[in-house]
């Protein structure tokens, strides 16, 4: 179980993050993600359990839906979130825990026959999220989903560069002018 041991070591390392330099903490987060991605075994979760991960992923997938182009699910956002909660944002685990509990209560209130967020129909998921979208929990899941979808893939999300492809961003070390339409001399009247 080498991956597991590595996670454990890094997790312990990260818990003394207040005593480490921030740089070391960040390197640990990335090493953790790299290690997990290299692993041939199915990805496992560290901060979340499998059921929590499924529920959070259902929320993330309504924030960034896979609606004809990859969304949070396809981009592996949940793996980013788990790693964030294992490393640099481990102090935010409680927000997830309590937020998820409250969201489950809200779900039971709105949809008494339902069993889980993930099993709700998409329209019901949207209604549920509308009911909690002013909460700290929702705001944090939204922030994490965006970071996981659009951030550097080395943290475990943005798989297949889904986020960057969506918006037309290219991560390269060199570009040449013209950069866009309006600075292209081919458009002699650049005024839009």
């Amino acid at each position, binding site marked *: 179980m080498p991956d597991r041991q590595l996670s454990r070591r890094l997790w312990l390392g990260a818990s003394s993050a207040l005593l480490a330099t921030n740089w070391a903490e*960040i390197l640990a987060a990335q090493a953790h993600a790299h290690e997990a991605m290299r692993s041939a075994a199915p990805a496992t979760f560290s901060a979340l359990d499998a059921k929590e991960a499924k529920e959070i992923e259902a929320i993330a997938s309504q924030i960034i839906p896979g609606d004809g182009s990859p969304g949070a699910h396809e981009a592996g956002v949940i793996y980013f979130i788990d790693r964030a909660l294992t490393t640099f944002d481990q102090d935010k685990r409680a927000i997830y825990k309590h937020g998820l509990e409250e969201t489950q209560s809200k779900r039971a209130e709105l949809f008494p026959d339902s069993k889980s967020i993930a099993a709700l129909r998409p329209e019901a998921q949207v209604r549920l999220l509308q009911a909690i979208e002013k909460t700290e929990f929702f705001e944090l899941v939204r922030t994490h989903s965006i970071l996981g979808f659009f951030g550097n893939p080395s943290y475990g999300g943005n798989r297949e560069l889904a986020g960057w492809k969506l918006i037309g961003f290219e991560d390269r070390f060199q570009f040449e002018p013209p950069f866009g339409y309006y600075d292209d001399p081919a458009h002699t009247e650049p005024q839009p």
Partner: protein
Amino acid sequence: MKHYRPSEEVDFLIIGGARQAASWRKNSPPRGFSVVVLEQGPYLREKDFQHDEIKYTRLAAMTNNLKCQPHTYRKSKTETAGVQDQGMIEYGRQVGGGSVHFTANYWRLWESDFKQKSKWGGVAGTSLADWPITYADLEPYYTKAEEELGVSGLAGANPFEAWRSKPYPLPPLPVKSSGVIFECATRKLGLHPFPALMAILSQPYRGRGACAHCGFCASFGCKVRAKSSTLATVIQVAERTGRCEIRPESYTRKIEVGRNGRVTGAVYFDAGRCQVFQKAKAVIVCANGSETPRLLLMSRSSRFPQGLANSNGMVGKHLMFDAGFSAYGVFEHPLNEFKSVQTTRVIHDFYEPDPKCGFHGGGGIDARFDFYPASFALFPLPQDAPRWSSDWKAMVSRNFNHTMMVLGHATCLPQERNSITLDPQVKDSWGLPAMRITFDYHPDDVRTMKFLLERQVEILQAAGAQKLWTDQTDVYYLPHRHLMGTCRMGDDAKTSVVDPHHRTHDVSNLFIVDGSSFVTACCQPTCTIQALAYRAADHIAREARKAVI
């Protein structure tokens, strides 16, 4: 690299491996001075820099870390300051300081900036003063900084700029789509756009290659050394002298004073959190406009019970920022603003509006885009935009390559009540008092920002933006970079902390060279900080050779 023993009395101990300290190092060591530089952060090199938005903007890999170094904030001294979970103050925290991650705007001050008191007379509620030096005193050092570091620009293109003895060493960087749009719109309005003045190489220069337009400048270190940071330039020169030691991960807690009232060196925490005392003949503090006053206030002694160099109580006062709102516009065709440097066109038409406009202040306006994929998705959409769902996703997707900003850079009036002090309760993770920020805008500062924002909106309207929106101006907004004024320079020892050559009035072998020396604020301080550092270095080296330090 040279290593000195802590017990060895070096000629100069420089605290803060920052943007300005380096110009110092470059000057002094060849004359045989021994120098140790203490930098609280790591010594990162080009190989360490990555295109990683999370690391640099979210996790503060190169800036002060709020988890280890909390700071507190209050609007006025009648309030109790609270710990901030969003940074109120941000500064570079690695060798090279802010010059490593800055956007690289490199604006000189105007001649009138040095004479704001004379220009405006008194302004109620402010502590306006003239600088004890003039533009003419600093001009040779502006030129020197531009030449030694490598700055791109076009002399004469800005009809309002102050006189200069030499043109820029490098031509401007290629214009981006935002720059073309801005240039057309501002000309239509009768304004005077000019190519951005950037400490980024448009052509190869002194052994470094030109900008490759990767787009990762603001908040990032440059992997190809095209950004003219002190890390890529003078720090290398200083180290090669063999007499300058850069000591990273060295967090200074106190400057020590001897019985004769002169400083003797400084105590710092090393990487293992052991305390080390480095002995020195003179100390130069270059720790930025927030950490410099904090360190002086922490350096209490029986001789200086209010903190070092603070017999008049002026250390930490007159805190100033460079504030401003953004306006955003979406255009029909792709701009692809993620490519190349963040800004390519600027105007200074509103740098010095007539006070009849209803305020004392002014500033520059530039065309720019300083977002990356995640920060774009998180922040700058219109207030009426959805915040999640397919509609939101479609909007982010459509707007990313079609959006530009027009940003205002406003001045900030000096007020004695705006300050850096030590928090009486909160400590950092080394057990040192946290920095406490007390700050509220002068009404004229807010008017300046709003006046500029109106001009920014006019520019985007003239440009024919398909959609146009601005930051919310009713939200209390605080800037957090460009920290100025907290150890102001002056002839009068009763009202200022350092003399016109950066020597503290109280201690003859203690100097302060950074944004804290500013008497009045400006929009882009780095250029002036570095010019001041070159000037101070000349003077201090001369004095040291005459043995009058």
